[in-house]
């Protein structure tokens, strides 16, 4: 009887501590959480507001001591500032998983870009698809600045492209010690390298590659 009780309690106990892996993206300007209404200004008086931040993450993989133990290959999650619930990604089926590092991509791989009509987060209805040059917009950052010379002082950075040599997908990895992972996206750092007088980038090419690398470098864990 005691053995049975022990087994049952151990089982229940293990279920309490077992949880699914969860990633929370935090969109930040330095240490503060970014909100759409924020007016961000520099010491020299130049300021800007970000109105839209959307980007794809995908191909999440978990590793234990260098060996892959789980993957979500071909699955993409759209992080969308218009839908803050999208900042959290749950990975069902990972309760019992033990891992010490993860990797994922920012953007979409070439297979996703050549596979025709897709649904879910890859649905062209999500506003992240170039109809005139088949392929996904991996990252969208839009806003306004009094310094911006474009129409309505609006800048638009649409980074995408999968054809060589201008692939914009970025792969990053982190060592992890918790099943709840907070990843900070330092938008302020990205914008710090942007020339606010410019209109932006709307096509694949060299600029899109450079900006994609710049964006990926802003992903940090605490």
């Amino acid at each position, binding site marked *: 009887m005691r053995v049975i009780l022990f087994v049952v309690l151990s089982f229940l106990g293990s279920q309490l501590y077992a949880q699914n892996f969860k990633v929370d993206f935090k969109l930040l300007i330095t240490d503060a959480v970014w909100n759409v209404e924020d007016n961000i200004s520099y010491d020299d008086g130049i300021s800007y507001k970000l109105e839209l931040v959307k980007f794809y993450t995908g191909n999440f993989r978990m590793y234990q001591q260098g060996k892959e133990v789980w993957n979500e290959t071909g699955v993409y999650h759209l992080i969308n500032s218009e839908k803050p619930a999208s900042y959290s990604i749950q990975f069902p089926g990972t309760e019992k998983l033990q891992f010490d590092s993860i990797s994922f991509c920012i953007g979409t791989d070439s297979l996703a*870009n*050549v*596979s*025709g*009509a*897709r*649904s879910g987060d890859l*649905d*062209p*209805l999500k506003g992240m*698809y170039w*109809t*005139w*040059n*088949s*392929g996904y917009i991996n990252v969208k950052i839009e806003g306004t600045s009094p310094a911006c010379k474009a129409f309505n002082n609006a800048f638009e950075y649409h980074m995408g492209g999968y*054809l060589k*040599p*201008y692939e914009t997908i970025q792969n990053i990895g982190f060592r992890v010690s918790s099943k709840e992972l907070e990843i900070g996206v330092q938008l302020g750092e990205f914008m710090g390298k942007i020339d606010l007088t410019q209109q932006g980038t709307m*096509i*694949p*090419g*060299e600029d899109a590659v450079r900006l994609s690398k710049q964006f990926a470098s802003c992903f940090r864990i605490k």
Partner: protein
Amino acid sequence: MKQRYFVIISFVLLVCLGFQMGGNRVVKFNVPKGWPKPVYDFDKHPLTVEGIELGRKLFYDTLLSADNTISCANCHTSFYAFTHIDHSMSHGISGKMGTRNSPALMNLAWSKLLMWDGAVNHIEVQALAPITNKDEMGESLEHVLEELQHSTIYPKLFAKAYSDTAITSERMLRSMAQFMLTLVSADSKYDSVMRKQSQFTAEELAGYKLFQKNCNSCHTEPLFTNNEFRNNGLQVYKTLNDLGRYKVTQRSEDSLMFKVPTLRNIEYSYPYMHDGRFKRFSQFLEHYVSGIKDGPTLSPELRNKIQLNVDERAQLTAFLLTLSDKSFIENKAFAFPE
């Protein structure tokens, strides 16, 4: 006892009826004998009678345009091998002028890249380009789907083709692709000769030999295109400044490269080239003989001059006319749905 049999038989009949109504009738895509393997994955997404019918209805529906005047068929008309006859460049809603000639649509299952510059990389996303182009149909995907959802006929047609009435972008695009994939042209006189069911005339045969010598490397049989991109030496018009595939890839080696079009049904699909600059065979033949402009990306095959005297041009013309497939342009299954 009889009553029980009646119940059983009725049940079986009802189940069969259920399959007929909700089920999809798969259509096998026939690859003509000797043709290469299609690029489209028919195993992953088989054609169905209902999917094709829905796609055809959408292809011919002006609802897909902002002012309800332009359907796909406006620029891709079945009797002209699905191109826009008599138009060097097509016009869209409100009479807006486009910048390219409407390509003839056929044998798309074998094309990896679509459009003159290969901007579209899969037949399922092809429809998105003209639908959202402001000079063509000028619509948004959201609005088109809304209109379909509010229409009296489309929910039923989507339910027939798919398991329920949900009208999604994936379903709309896939069914349009299904219809376009059925546009196969493989029944011209040339095909009949290849199947040893008829013979070329002496003139056509001479033309065929000239074709094999001068044209086949790019306009490769049996598709009459190698589905690749080439610079065929057309002079750039400064007003259009169309650099072709360079716009898509941003690579200098793709400057002035355009997709090699099929020569099938060339009799019906004038005018010719990406900007429709040539109205007659004689004009493009003259181009290949004396009009080629040299440049760093010129197709290597065209660096040596093509020589065609008057008789040879007549022979080549006779051969090109054997690529006309009347059964294709007259096929009721491709025409406006009744």
